[in-house]
């Protein structure tokens, strides 16, 4: 992995939550992720996984340290600029899907482009394409309530990738799904990397972790293990 390939870089990132007692969720964490990498972040509850994901996702600011996303140092950015980083560079997939109940699948996916100022027509066109790619071309006009859990998460993935982000961040994406749906979701996520999008998945699910190329194990706010499971070439074979 050369330097240009790096889409995400954390160095010395610390996150302390004030209060009593003071909680140090992340403690001088370093992490570097290249494009098209598939990273599983593992660890027990309270180990700082979710905080790490939020900081990578610019949803939270670190107390200390440097975060670079697609080469841009984000800690000095205003809130509006951080929002722009999310709008253009990042995609999110959540355990609870977080779909808007009163919009159909197309509008839910199109919401992924809402804050870029594209016209509704452009957004919906891109959304239909993205839904096609996640295999929901036949469910365009369905509202979330009419979709199965697996289908909902596919809609959420389509929303995350419709803007072609550099990094997709997934927080327990299979947590609310049965194992068959979960496997399909993981397969879908791993395919994303084939196009150069980096995937960071926070998970408890060993099946999910097994499908990623790299495992980052956390405990007490520190990375205690960072292991390349397989090369990307080998990973490509696995997904095929």
């Amino acid at each position, binding site marked *: 992995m050369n330097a240009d390939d790096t889409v995400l870089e954390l160095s010395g990132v610390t996150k302390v939550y004030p209060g009593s007692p003071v909680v140090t969720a992340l403690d001088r964490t370093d992490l570097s992720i290249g494009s098209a990498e598939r990273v599983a972040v593992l660890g027990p509850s309270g180990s700082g996984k979710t905080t790490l994901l939020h900081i990578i996702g610019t949803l939270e600011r670190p107390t200390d340290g440097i975060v670079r996303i697609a*080469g*841009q140092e984000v800690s000095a950015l205003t809130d509006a600029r951080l929002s*722009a*980083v999310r709008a*253009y560079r990042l995609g999110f997939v959540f355990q609870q899907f977080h779909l808007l109940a*009163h919009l159909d699948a197309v509008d839910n996916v199109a919401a992924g482009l*809402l804050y870029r100022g594209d016209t509704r027509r452009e957004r919906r066109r891109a959304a239909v394409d993205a839904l096609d790619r996640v295999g929901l071309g036949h469910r365009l006009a369905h509202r979330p309530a009419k979709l199965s859990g697996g289908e909902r998460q596919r809609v959420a993935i389509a929303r995350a990738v419709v803007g072609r982000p550099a990094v997709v961040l997934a927080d327990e994406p299979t947590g609310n799904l049965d194992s068959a749906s979960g496997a399909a979701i993981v397969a879908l996520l791993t395919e994303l990397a084939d196009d*150069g999008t980096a995937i960071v998945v926070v998970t408890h699910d060993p099946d999910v972790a097994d499908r990623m190329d790299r495992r980052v194990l956390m405990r007490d706010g520190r990375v205690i293990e960072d292991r390349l499971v397989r090369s990307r070439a080998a990973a490509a074979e696995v*997904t095929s």
Partner: protein
Amino acid sequence: MSSQPSLLARPATGHPQVRRSRLRIGDGFLAGAIGLRARPVRAALSALGIAIGIAAAVAVLGISAFSKANLLAQLGAEGNLLTVTAGQSADGSAAPLPLTAEGMVGHIPPVQSVTAVGLVSGATVRRTAAVPVVDSGGISVMAAQPSLLATLGGSVARGTFLNAANGNYPAVVLGAAAAQTLGIDQVPLGTQVYLGGRYFTVIGILRPVPLAPEIDEAALVGFPVANSLLELGGHPTELYLRATPEQVPAVASVLPFTTDPAQPEGVQVSRPSAVLAARAAAKTAFTALFLGLGAVAVVVGGVGIANIMVISVIERRAEIGLRRALGGTRRHVAAQFLAESVLLSLLGGAAGVALGALATAGYAVTDKQPAVIPPTAVAAGIGVAVAVGALAGVYPAARAARMAPAEALR
């Protein structure tokens, strides 16, 4: 790389400067509308306060505008009607004016028209002779000239008015209130009333004459028949006249002497439009009161909307978190909730305007008058609704914008 079809096109290579987040105005309102669509009943209920307030204001303004239009019609837009009486004689009945009065007054140059009526004292009007005298219902009998209607701006609701021909016969035209008292609302041939000791044929019924309510309570007969059958003696008791509007005060000042040169001090001149104007002023005070009540309802409605919006913000934490994750700025989130609040209030305002217009129309229809809904009241109603919605949305929107995205998503 595998040869399978690409899930995604490659992300943009290199690291170009990230652009700013942007939300189109229309999309902001669309996002706001989603909140309303999600809970339509709640939206309708919370918009109700605004609707009631605006409806009250529009209806009051509409009805008072309508009354004003009505009043202007009554005044002939000029208020140039004058009445002349000789005051009361010793026994309390209307004193007669000199026989020459009408002709003399008609010669005052600014006087456009003049007409005389003569009160037949002691005469009663009953449906039949069998009705006791005490039940005469306070209807007075007056002799009138054919020119009365033109001078007063009155009109006939049914039948015809007195003219040169029927004035010689026992024919009577009933004022609006008198007809109602007698229970007569149609004038088929042969309708009769018992008037001054004999039967008179009813030939017409008048519409209300607001400038001369005494006509409404009267049964009108021709002067010739009043003289021959009712012993009026030809003396008028009251003159109605219209003068050139600019000359009204001047005419009023010369009227007593012109009317009765022998006893000018006994002549009373009045201007009925002044009475109506005073009544209108009293109505304006009521209008202000109702507008005030409407304003209170609107304010309470605004507080209700603010309240509902705060609840909505709390309930929709996850959505706010999601929107921030999708790249929405604090400003975008605030704009969405502000738009929702404005839409909610606008909905109430529009419903209120419609309701108020309906009430005005209903009022006008029962009065058989054209409805007047002032465009300014409609515009003000909508404007107030938007302003109240914006104001009510400020705090909830700020609260939504302040939410930390990571917290909201947890």
